């Protein structure tokens, strides 16, 4: 798009109170008519000092706080923290704990991607997919509620184990749910993903070329949308992900350049199906065991530091924990996937239109709570 403008530039403040800013993101748009010359994101409206909080709470007490960083995928957030502390303490959990953690993390990934896809439709003006996605997400949340008693903020993964074992017969119901859910993905595709207007709105918008994605450190579905096959679950397996047979979908650029909003969206849809595959395999292999067996009485890691990265639905989530040998962490640093995506926003939103800005913000699927922490 030609950016030679001669008219006056109007500053339009989009957010923090805006229906499609996914929280409280504020975008300062310099607009020339409908064309956005520059979009400057302002973050920090939801800063709640998680890292400072964590320094004053004992190790197990941090877990509920990690839930609140990304309320859409809380299981994955706490999983990263718990794995980091276990790595620091050298705890080896048994197979049942591992598999249940994988099942829960992948279920939550499905739920999170459903929210992403649904709200993306909402951003583009299509209401029905949003509610169809939430209908199925509710069923997943029901499983979580049955397992640990909470629907959104679970505190389910504990250091060295799990809060509860799976309730009676949940495995069977999860399989039933997957049987019901997998055909519905095709329904969602026909309703939204393959819709011509949707493709037109997304397929050549907000392009993140691979080299830009790498240079900004963009991770997760946003990176894979740019055509780079990188998934922490595959490239640096944790929790025994190497035992599972799944594919890492990448953006193909079917209707436009690779790395567009459409690619990022479709990667999420495909990932949902891959997560279904992983859950089926994990349930088939689920061994018996005691989920409380390795929970330490007192969590007092030795002096040292650890970095653990996991693949949360929004990308690579890293926890850097420094321990001074007491029962409270000396320092907890979070490498947030949303923050890295947002850092490049100015780059890949240049020259878009106002409607495209909404589409781009929706397609990178940020959760502001995690971005600001």
């Amino acid at each position, binding site marked *: 798009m030609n950016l030679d403008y001669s008219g006056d530039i109007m500053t339009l403040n989009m957010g923090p109170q805006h*229906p*499609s800013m996914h929280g409280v993101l504020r975008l300062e748009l310099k607009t020339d008519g*409908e064309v956005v010359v520059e979009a400057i994101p302002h973050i920090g409206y939801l800063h709640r000092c998680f890292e400072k909080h964590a320094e004053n709470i004992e190790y197990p007490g941090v877990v509920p706080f990690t839930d609140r960083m990304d309320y859409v995928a809380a299981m994955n957030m706490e999983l990263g923290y718990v794995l980091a502390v276990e790595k620091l303490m050298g705890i080896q959990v048994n197979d049942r704990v591992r598999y249940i953690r994988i099942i829960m993390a992948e279920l939550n990934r499905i739920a999170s991607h459903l929210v992403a896809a649904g709200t993306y439709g909402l951003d583009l*003006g*299509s209401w029905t997919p949003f509610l169809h996605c939430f*209908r199925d997400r509710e069923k997943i949340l029901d499983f979580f509620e049955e397992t640990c008693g909470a629907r959104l903020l679970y505190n389910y993964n504990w250091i060295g184990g799990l809060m509860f074992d799976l309730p009676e017969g949940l495995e069977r119901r999860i399989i039933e749910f997957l049987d019901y859910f997998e055909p519905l993905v095709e329904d969602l595709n026909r309703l939204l993903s393959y*819709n011509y*207007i949707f493709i037109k*709105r997304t397929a050549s918008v907000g392009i993140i070329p691979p080299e830009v994605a790498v240079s900004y450190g963009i991770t997760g579905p946003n990176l894979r949308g740019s055509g780079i096959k990188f998934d922490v679950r595959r490239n640096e397996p944790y929790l025994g992900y190497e035992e599972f047979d799944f594919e890492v979908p990448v953006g193909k650029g079917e209707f436009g350049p690779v790395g567009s909003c459409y690619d990022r969206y479709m990667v999420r849809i495909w990932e949902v199906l891959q997560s279904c595959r992983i859950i089926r395999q994990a349930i088939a292999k689920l061994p018996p065991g005691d989920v409380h067996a390795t929970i330490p009485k007192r969590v007092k890691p030795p002096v040292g530091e650890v970095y653990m990265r996991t693949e949360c639905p929004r990308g690579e989530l890293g926890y850097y924990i420094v321990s001074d040998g007491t029962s409270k962490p000396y320092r907890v640093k979070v490498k947030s996937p949303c923050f890295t995506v947002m850092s490049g926003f100015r780059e890949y939103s240049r020259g878009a239109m106002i409607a495209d800005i909404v589409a781009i913000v929706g397609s990178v699927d940020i959760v502001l709570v995690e971005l600001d922490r």
Partner: protein
Amino acid sequence: MESIRDLLELIPYTTALPVWVQAILPPAVSAVILFLFVAVLAMFAIWLERKVAAHMQDRLGPMYVGGWHGWAQSIADTIKLLLKEDIVPAAADKALFKAAPAIVFIPSFAAFVVLPFGISSIVADLNIGVLYLFAVASLTVVGILMAGWASNNKYSLFGGMRSAAQIVSYEIPAALSVMPVIIIVGSLSMQQIVRAQTGGIQNWFVFRNPFTFLAFFLYFICSLAEVNRTPFDIPEAESELVAGYHTEYSGMRFAFFFLAEYSNMFLVAGIATTLFLGGWSQVLPAQWVPKQLIPGPILFFLKALSLVFVQIWLRWTLPRLRVDQLMYLCWKVMLPLALVLVLGAGLLAVW
């Protein structure tokens, strides 16, 4: 209006009234009837939209107010809106801000004058009915632009500008897509157009020839754009522009915008019914059922409502277009198609 005049003559002592009152009474009465009709219709359409949307999304929609499936929900909402505080932003252009809702509503109300609900139920059968419709309906854009400008809000301004561009553009293919019908009928009077379609479904202009068949779809799509419905609802795109030109409005003025939107929906559905679906004429062919079984107004109403349903259906299915794509669709798809249709229909009429 003639039938209303006849009815009024039945009331005793009307002849004793002053002459100017006698002259003004029939139009006034028909205006009141029409207004009530439009208001009730809009409330019904809102309720219908909410229920249809809910069931498409596996929800239930309003269920409590009034008992049966929340039928009184929109009445309750209207009362709530009327009782709310009327806020005028401090920085707004007060006069324009207050006038805009009326200017949006009046054209859509005025356009109802020429809608033929039945053989005799029409307020005024103008001989330039279709022209009048298009002229009056295009006035709505002035009100929307006023609302967008006067609110002194950047989102409202964007909404107003988008709406102006959109309505002005889409009027051209909309007017052109009506041409095939007018070429066949040879009259702009709405009643004459309906009369040309009496005698059953095969005489409706939708099924008359391929050009009018396509023209119906073309007109329907353009009318969606003219009343700012999804997928062309970019002026009030709530995920982009909060609420577009009526962002700053509340209470009764907001209710007027809403009323205008839903009466406009019914209006364009009514126009499409009149022009293409035979208006008040019967559905079954006259060879089989020589006498019209269902009264004309009810038939008209049902046909128009089914089109309103399609509008609702589309709204809850499709995403929204972008501004430039909207213009692309108008100028590069709709307009050539409309010109081809006019040409084809003209050639067919000559031949």
